[in-house]
């Protein structure tokens, strides 16, 4: 067992590093909120699909950086052994395997047979020109006013 016991004293993260991390997290939080407020007007002329992509990338990118900062500094993974680093990444990596199910939801509408009941096109992932469910307008025609409340 001694082969694993490194004769180091455990790492103590200095307070200044913790404070800097907190500041970074605060700045990122303000950025993501601010972008969410200005995005609808700033991306008015961008095609909706592209605007959606940009918005999602920014929101999730910032969240990702925040999470990495918390994991590395606050949780001290940066100062841990590589096996701990591996386990810290493992859960997040494995979560991405669940995205395989989009191979299902993303391709259902390619199928020759749409549904068992003739005339009913119920499907999980309709294309833009298809309705969500019977009796609804096609997806691209859905217009919801911004200021309902």
């Amino acid at each position, binding site marked *: 067992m*001694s082969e694993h016991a490194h004769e180091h004293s455990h790492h103590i993260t200095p307070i200044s590093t913790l404070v800097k991390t907190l500041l970074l997290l605060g700045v990122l939080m303000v950025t993501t909120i601010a972008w969410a407020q200005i995005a609808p007007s700033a991306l008015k002329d961008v095609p909706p699909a592209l605007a959606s992509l940009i918005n999602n990338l920014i929101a999730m990118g910032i969240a990702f950086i925040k999470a990495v900062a918390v994991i590395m500094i606050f949780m001290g993974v940066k100062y841990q052994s590589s096996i701990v680093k591996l386990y810290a990444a493992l859960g997040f990596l494995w979560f991405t395997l*669940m995205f395989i*199910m989009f191979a*299902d*939801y993303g*391709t*259902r509408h*390619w199928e020759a047979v749409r549904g068992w009941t003739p005339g009913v096109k119920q499907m999980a992932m309709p294309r833009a020109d298809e309705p969500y469910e019977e009796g609804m307008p096609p997806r691209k025609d859905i217009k919801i006013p911004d200021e309902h409340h």
Partner: protein
Amino acid sequence: MTTHVATDEKNYLQEGHTLASWLLTKDHKRIAVLYLISVSFFFFVGSIAAMMVRLELTSPRGTLMSNETYNKAFSAHGVVMVFFFLVVAIPAIFGNFLIPMQIGARDLAFPRLNLLSWYFYMAGGIMFLIAMMSGGVDAGWTFYTPMSSIYSNGQITLALVGAFVVGFSSIFTGVNFIATIHKMRAPGMTWWRLPLFVWGHYATSLIVILGTPVVAITLLLVVFERVAKIGIFSPELGGDPVLFQHMFWFYSHPAVYIMVLPGMAVISEIMACFSRNKVFGYHFVALSSLGIAALSFIVWGHHMFVSSQSMYQGIFFSFTSFLVAVPSAIKVFNWSLTMYKGSVWLASPMIYALGFLGLFTVGGMTGLYLASVGTDVHVTGTYFVVAHFHYVMVGGTLLAFLGALHFWWPKFFGRMYPEGVAKWNALLVFIGFNLTFLPQFVVGWLGMPRRYHYYYFAPEFQVYHVMSTLGASALAVSLIVPAFYLTYSLFKGPKSPPNPWAARGLEWEAAASPPIKHNFHGVPVVVGDVYDYDAEAEELALRGMTKEEA
């Protein structure tokens, strides 16, 4: 390795005889014995439900019970056997007992967590028993929505909470094993000197911590759907019931390997010991466990070929399912080659291991039929599927469990069982099993649907069902017999020497049978290679010669 064993010392069974000394123990060996008792009990409960199912099917008209009772019987059989026997049995009993001993540690890393996991197991089990007594569950062990969330009556909620709680029991065990295997190995016990039993359990623990939470939360969402009326899988709210199946099988396919990888781990040990040979391709067998663990997470859709999942996804999952055959085949071939040029000793554990080899191969090969989309559409939901997974789960895991029980029984309790009876019984298990499930392949291929309690539309199936029920009765006898002779041996069996099989490994060579509380005197230092059997010398020794003389 040192073989110093003092005989006058108290073993772990003698460290206290009160009930509290068992129920509050933190000793991994005692917790393993607690698990052995409780898992055997749940196995008994599940077997009763299985016998109810088999008796009902002897008649094409379904005369013994109503369809609802029948649904409850097969659901009880499925839930109890999967969640309370197969997933738990080998890791929680043998893994718990042997992993610290095989790596040269005094205990698991977190003994209190280990005890807590047993209490979670019991709490979940009791919840399910109450659910069964007070109305039963008729949604099958898969709990598909919207059947389980909207339409099904009975005690689904309580049963699901029980399954959720027992899931945490496995998670605690998995966390414990991972930390233990990484950090508690004795000096000299490198990764490539670990017995394959430990490798198999490491892969199993990885699947447990990555998969079990997924099914736990999915079942919890169904509970919320029933109790709090939220509806994530509810088609009434625009939700997709197939999403439940995705989430469920994301765990439950890997769970198949949670059930069978520990069995494979046991077989590696038995094969090496009773062939007196190093496991052929040790590194490949070790890595194939990890390969199976990784691949198992990208094949789940083959359970859903006839759901409304896209056929393009079906093609993807069909392809990946074939890939899993590769590491499984590596294992089967390597075990077979372990016997080659070995000195095979047909003791009862070895007979179980050989049975495993044959039955698991049949189960695996029929799995290929089911992995290809076209064939699967024909046989989905028939007895062909039932026979397939029983060949893997019963022919695989149950036989490995029995083999492990016979192999390590002297280590657990320091007593020998009557070997002659055990050998014949092992043969009876093999025959009874095949008589039960071989006809099911045929009748399934002919079109007998699973989960039907009658088949008056095809009375010609009766002969297969009667054969199957006869086989199940033989299997039942062959499972009751060991209960008697093993219990007998506890009190009257001859005392076993520390290493009755002359097996290699720290648990046999450096510890007493039964072991002392801290397993070893001091910390064992590992210098030799793993499985350093010498079949040639042993064969010669049987003829009274040494290598030099030959």
